[in-house]
C-alpha cells in the first residue's frame, strides 16, 4: 500500500467569487494524524470539507484542482462514494435525536439502504463503540435515545457512527471545541488509538491540541498552505515567519 493516502494537487475552493482556499498541494500519509490549524477564516475548515465533498452542498460553492484518494480523484466519483470512504465528525455533536444509540451507530448503513442480518449489525455496533471508547458506558442502554449522554459521550457516539462505515480517512472539524476539558482529553486519547485503523485529519484552532495529538501539522493562513511539517519540527523550528508568529501568539 502506498504511503500517501490523500493528495491535493493545486486545489482551490471558492464561495461564489470568494477565493478561500488557494492552490493547496499536500500529501497526507496513511495512518497518521494530521492537524490542520490556522487563524479564523484561513480556509482550514473549507479545505477539510472539500476532502469529502461537503463543501459543494453550499449554494454557490465550487472548487478546482485534484483531490486524490489512493490516486483516484475524489471529484471524479459520485460524492456518495466519496463520503462512504471518507467519514466526518463535526464541531458540535450531532447524533440523530430520533434514533437510539444502536441505530445511530448503524445509521450510515440504514441511510444507504444497506441491509444486513441483525447479528452483523450488532458486531459492527459493538466494534465501533469499542473503538470509540464508548462501549462500556452504553452497552446496557443501546436502545435508548442518545439524548441523555454528555457532550463528550455524544461526540464519541458520532465518532462511532462515522467509523462504523469503515472509512479509510476520518475528518474531524474542531471535534472538541464544544466540549469540556475532561471530554476533550478523552477524545484526544481516542485519536491516538484510532490512527491504527484510520487516517485522521483534524482541524483545530487549539495549537496545544495540535501539538498533543498529531504526527504532522499543516498551517493555513489566508487560504494558503503556508507550512507543512512533522509536528515536533513545526513547533520547535518553524520555517516561515507567519508560522512563527502564529505559534508564538502574535496573531490569530
Amino acid at each position, binding site marked *: 500500500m502506498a504511503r500517501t493516502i490523500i493528495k491535493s494537487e493545486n486545489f482551490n475552493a471558492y464561495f461564489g467569487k470568494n477565493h478561500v482556499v488557494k492552490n493547496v498541494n499536500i500529501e497526507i500519509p496513511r495512518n497518521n494524524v494530521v492537524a490542520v490549524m490556522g487563524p479564523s477564516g484561513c480556509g482550514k475548515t473549507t479545505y477539510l470539507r472539500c476532502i469529502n465533498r461537503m463543501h459543494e452542498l453550499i449554494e454557490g460553492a465550487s472548487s478546482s484542482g485534484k483531490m486524490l484518494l489512493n490516486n483516484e480523484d475524489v471529484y471524479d466519483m*459520485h460524492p*456518495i*462514494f466519496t463520503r462512504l470512504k471518507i467519514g466526518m465528525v463535526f464541531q458540535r455533536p450531532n447524533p440523530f435525536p430520533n434514533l437510539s444509540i444502536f441505530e445511530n451507530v448503524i445509521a450510515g448503513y440504514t441511510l*444507504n*439502504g444497506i441491509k444486513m442480518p441483525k447479528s452483523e449489525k450488532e458486531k459492527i455496533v459493538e466494534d465501533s463503540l469499542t473503538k470509540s471508547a464508548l462501549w462500556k458506558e452504553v452497552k446496557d442502554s443501546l436502545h435508548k435515545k442518545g439524548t441523555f449522554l454528555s457532550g463528550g459521550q455524544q461526540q464519541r457516539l458520532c465518532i462511532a457512527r462515522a467509523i462504523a462505515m469503515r472509512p479509510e480517512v476520518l475528518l474531524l472539524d474542531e471535534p472538541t471545541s464544544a466540549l469540556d476539558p475532561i471530554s476533550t482529553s478523552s477524545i484526544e486519547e481516542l485519536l491516538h488509538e484510532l490512527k491504527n485503523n484510520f487516517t485522521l485529519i483534524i482541524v483545530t484552532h487549539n495549537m496545544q491540541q495540535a501539538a498533543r495529538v498529531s504526527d504532522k501539522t499543516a498551517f493555513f493562513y489566508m487560504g494558503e498552505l503556508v507550512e507543512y511539517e512533522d509536528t515536533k519540527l513545526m513547533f520547535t523550528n518553524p520555517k516561515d515567519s507567519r508560522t512563527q508568529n502564529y505559534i508564538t501568539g502574535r496573531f490569530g
Partner: protein
Amino acid sequence: MNVKIKYRVFKSKLIQVLIIALAFVCTLPLIAILVYIFKQGITKINWAFLTQLPKPVGEEGGGIVNALVGSVLIVFFASLIAIPISILCGVYLSENKNGKVAYWARLAVDVLQGVPSIVIGIAVYFWVVKPMGTFSAFSGSIALAVMMLPIMIRSTEETLKMIPDSLKEAGYALGLPYHKVILRVILPCSISGILSGILLSVARIAGETAPLLFTAFGNPYLNTNMGKPMQSLPLLIFNYATSPYDEWHDLAWGAALILLFTVLLLNIFTKLITKRWHVQL
C-alpha cells in the same frame, strides 16, 4: 455498489421532480379561478352596475350599489370597533408577558381564532339581533369585529414585542407617565406593524359571508342606516349565485370579480407594507 448508488440518486431526483410537480399543480386552481371570474365578471361591470340597485327578477340590468355601499359601511364600522380594542389588548399582552390574566386572555384569543365564523354569527345574533328586535348592519359589524380581533391582537403583540425596552426607558426618563409612554412613544413606532395587521384582517373579513347571514342579513335596497339590515358583497354573491335566475348570476359574477380583486389587492398591498417595515427595523 455503483449501480445501487446510481439508483438511489435517480430515486432522489425523481422524488424531487414529483414534489415540485405536486407543489406547482396547486397554483392551477387559483389561476383557474382568477381567470374564470375575470372573464365572467369583466363584461358585467360598468357604471350602471356600480350605481344601480338590483332589478327585480325578469328585468335586465341592474347593479350592486347596495352591496358595495353596504360592504364598505359594515367593514368600516367593524374596523372602528375592533381596532382600538385590539391595540389596547395587544399592548396589555405585550406589557404583561407573565401573569394569570394575560395567560387566559392569550388563550382566549387563540381559541377565538379557531372558532368557525358561523358560530360567531350565531352568538352575535343572540347578543345583538334578538335584543334589538331586528337584523342590522350594526350587528354584522360586531360579528366581523369579533373575527378581526385575533388577527389584529396577535400582530400588535408581535410588533410591540420587537420594540426595544430602551425606548420605553427613554420615555420614562423624560418624565412621561405610563400611558403617554405607550401612546406617544411606543405605538407610533409600531404603526406599520399594526397597520399590516389591520389590513390583513380587513382583507379577511371583507369576504366573509357566514357571520352576516343572521346579523346584517342582506337588503335588496340601498340602506345606510346601521340599525337596519344591510346588503354586502359576499351576501349578494351567495344569494344570487344560488338562485335560479340568469340575470342574478350575472350580477353575482360582477360582484365576485370586484370582491376577489379587492381582497387580493389588499393582501398584496399588505405584503408590500410589511416588507418595507422589515427593512426599517
